[in-house]
């Protein structure tokens, strides 16, 4: 079978052309239909947006070092956190894992040459660029100050900032996300290699299937909402503006009808990555595969029913509030199932602590806290006190940064050898993972305490008794910042000086590890036929463990 030589790492005859050097002109990149190249272009853009968002975050933390609004004026501060939120959510976190890792890996993982609709894939990248460019233009013109939630009537009538331009940018960006999701759905349905049944799919693919459902069904709603918002701003028709008959709460319903499911767009791919990491680095089949797979779908579906938990104190009816609180509790259960299955997977494994696994374990701890504090916020009587305080800020950073960003970093490290063919420095990788973990907790844990004390969010100036905890938070952010800058350096370094990674550095059974690193343009020299179960480490997987061990011995000797 073809697997044998594909697995023998390093020693296999490497084809001269891989996706990276198959065409070197700018045009060959910009007009490519290769999902891997598109993923790389996403990677670069998304990272730039992350850095910008991070710079805004640093500015926020510096301003909050002291109680008075002394570093920034309140107006500037308002723009800073708004733009931080918008860039991070719409232009970084939502595309992060799906558009980079999903794009790169899904076709390889299911044994296809490409996504089903490669031109649509390229189109989605261009739409993203267009939207991103437009957002940046708007920020340069003067920015927005509405908060990332754009609540009306402030955004429609009172704000003097570039709400319309940014709204339209988000509208356009939505289509990028829709097309990506659509492409994944089609690909996963039709492009699976022979033998790759639904229940042999890696959980990463399952998670992306669930995410794609949300992207395709949720995103159009935010698109139409921002469109209405933008039109309302020019035409002053009262859809949302109460002074002429509109309904500001309708906006909140429409906004959260998308944006709550969107938070699952922001975590499900991360969960997919974690399933891979946990299983790979304990060299065990994931515990309760079907449950983990279906819980992704359950999260995606139930996620559409709970948007009202963002409106507990907005004046919606008391009974609506209770129903949404109830459903919020229900949607937490599938996440719980995942947590338990991950932990159980470690049992009797053979666990190694390479950098990606550090991120994987970090994720479990941080998402646990983030998710549990989500329950605090879902308990309606408690949220009345907590909503719009720093407790919420801490909750969503725990799930978004502690969850998705950590998973994203873990994934980048994990598949880096596959994407580039090079190995980064394990030493610096570990240091940076630890710094991120420590810095992150130091930044955001104090914010739970601040929130319970009552410090409202989006405050440029705050009463003095909150200062001590804010100092902790700012200090933590500095550590976190350092931890996050390091990968940029050592990963960049590895591109040129890194040692050859080999095709399968960790000897893993997934299809992506059975092609060369970096993979050729059409992914496999010979198209695979799958005869083994997902996460199969035993004989059936066809992995040549003995050869790999011998290789290790040779390496150790030299």
């Amino acid at each position: 079978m073809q697997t044998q030589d594909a697995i023998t790492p390093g020693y296999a005859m490497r084809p001269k052309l891989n996706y990276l050097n198959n065409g070197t002109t700018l045009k060959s990149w910009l007009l490519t239909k290769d999902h891997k190249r598109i993923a790389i272009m996403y990677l670069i853009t998304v990272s730039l947006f992350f850095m910008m968002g991070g710079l805004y975050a640093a500015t926020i933390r510096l301003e909050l070092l002291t109680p008075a609004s002394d570093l920034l004026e309140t107006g500037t501060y308002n723009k800073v956190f708004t733009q931080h939120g918008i860039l991070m959510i719409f232009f970084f976190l939502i595309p992060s894992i799906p558009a980079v890792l999903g794009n790169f890996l899904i076709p390889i993982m299911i044994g296809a040459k490409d996504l089903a609709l490669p031109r649509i894939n390229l189109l989605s990248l261009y739409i993203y660029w267009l939207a991103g460019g437009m957002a940046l233009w708007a920020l340069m013109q003067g920015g927005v100050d509405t908060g990332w939630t754009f609540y009306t009537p402030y955004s429609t009538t009172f704000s003097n900032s570039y709400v319309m331009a940014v709204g339209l940018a988000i509208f356009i960006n939505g289509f990028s996300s829709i097309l990506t999701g659509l492409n994944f759905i089609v690909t996963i349905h039709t492009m699976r290699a022979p033998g790759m049944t639904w229940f042999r799919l890696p959980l990463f693919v399952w998670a992306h299937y669930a995410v794609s459902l949300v992207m395709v069904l949720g995103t159009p709603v935010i698109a139409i909402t921002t469109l209405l918002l933008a039109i309302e701003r020019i035409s002053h028709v009262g859809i949302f503006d109460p002074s002429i008959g509109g309904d500001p709460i309708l906006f909140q319903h429409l906004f959260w009808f998308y944006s709550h499911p969107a938070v699952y767009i922001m975590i499900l791919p991360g969960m997919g990555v974690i399933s891979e990491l946990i299983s790979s680095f304990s060299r065990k089949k994931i515990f309760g595969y079907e449950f983990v797979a279906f819980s992704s779908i359950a999260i995606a579906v139930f996620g559409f029913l709970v948007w009202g938990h963002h409106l507990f104190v907005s004046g919606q009816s008391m009974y609506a509030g209770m129903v949404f609180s109830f459903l919020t509790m229900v949607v937490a259960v599938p996440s719980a199932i995942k947590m338990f299955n991950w932990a159980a997977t470690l049992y009797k494994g053979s666990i190694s602590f390479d950098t990606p696994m550090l991120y994987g374990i970090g994720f479990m701890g941080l998402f646990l806290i983030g998710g549990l504090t989500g329950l605090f916020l879902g308990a309606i009587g408690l949220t009345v006190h907590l909503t719009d305080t720093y407790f919420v800020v801490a909750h969503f950073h725990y799930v978004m940064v502690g969850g998705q960003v950590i998973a994203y970093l873990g994934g980048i490290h994990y598949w880096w050898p596959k994407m580039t063919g090079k190995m980064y420095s394990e030493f610096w990788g570990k240091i940076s993972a630890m710094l991120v973990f420590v810095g992150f907790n130091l930044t955001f844990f104090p914010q739970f305490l601040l929130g319970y004390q009552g410090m409202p969010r989006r405050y440029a100036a705050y009463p003095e008794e909150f200062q001590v905890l804010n100092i902790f938070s700012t200090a933590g952010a500095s550590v976190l910042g350092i931890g996050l800058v390091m990968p940029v350096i050592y990963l960049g370094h590895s591109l040129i000086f890194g040692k050859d990674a080999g095709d399968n550095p960790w000897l893993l059974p997934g299809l992506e590890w059975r092609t060369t690193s970096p993979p050729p343009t059409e992914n496999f020299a010979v198209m695979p036929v799958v005869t083994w179960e997902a996460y199969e480490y035993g004989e059936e997987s066809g992995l040549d463990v003995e050869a790999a061990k011998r290789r290790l011995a040779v390496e150790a000797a030299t």
Partner: protein
Amino acid sequence: MSTHETSDKFVYHEPGLQHQFEDMGQQEESVSIGMWAFLAQEIMFFGGLFTAYLVFRSKYPMAFAAGSNHLNAFWGGLNTLVLIVSSLTMALTVYYAQKGNRNMQVILIMLTMFFGSVFLGVKAIEYTDKYNHGIVPVTGLNKVVKADTKSEHAEVKEKPCYEVSHGEEEEEYVNPRGEFQWKDCSLVKLAQDHNYLTSAEKIGYFSNGEIDADKFRDKVRIFFFLYFVMTGLHALHMIVGLGLMTWLLWTAWKKYYSADYYMPVEMSGLYWHFVDIVWIFLFPLLYLLGRHFMH
């Protein structure tokens, strides 16, 4: 999918088969699933607007009825008919594509395009009418009518708004800045007399217990705003549809399709039917609901 193992560059590729697929079956399945997912997306897209429509319709039924009454059900009905027929011609196009009958295909595509254009033409007539009557809900996008010194119209103005009967506002009016115009609030009076104002309306149309023409106008404006956004987006979809048809016409003319390969025709047909169906919902919601109040 069984050709996997033998697949490489030297395998014979059917026309229209793209490089990432193994065979036509796979490609067609992909395109079809993609199209359905796209349509699901479209449903959610229009769904947001329908939600907004329902919210405001239930808050301000009288304002919406007043707005509805002003739309011309004849044009709307004609357009409905035109679209239904175009759906038929589209379905026949697919049928003849499957049969591999090029000439019928070309004829039917042209017919479909013809009906599509009629639809858009009627829409243009309707929009122009709104423009002339000053009921485009955006200031500045209406016909500008400079103040006229002839004083006949002053009388119309002095009547209480609920006695301005329907149609009267079609006379010359003054609108120097192209603002949204709405004078008739007879329906409010009607509803007040028969006691079926909603609680939102009781606040929304009145100031100090009197019917407030301005406040009522704002609510009617919401109706027209939704009317323009919904029909506008629908018309945009029609235009995209016509673009698709043009391409289809070209490729059909070139004998691109055969009994073995007619996927693009089928998919374009799916899209065309979807756009028709949206109109089937728009027409009663915008043109018909609340008509009985007028008579």
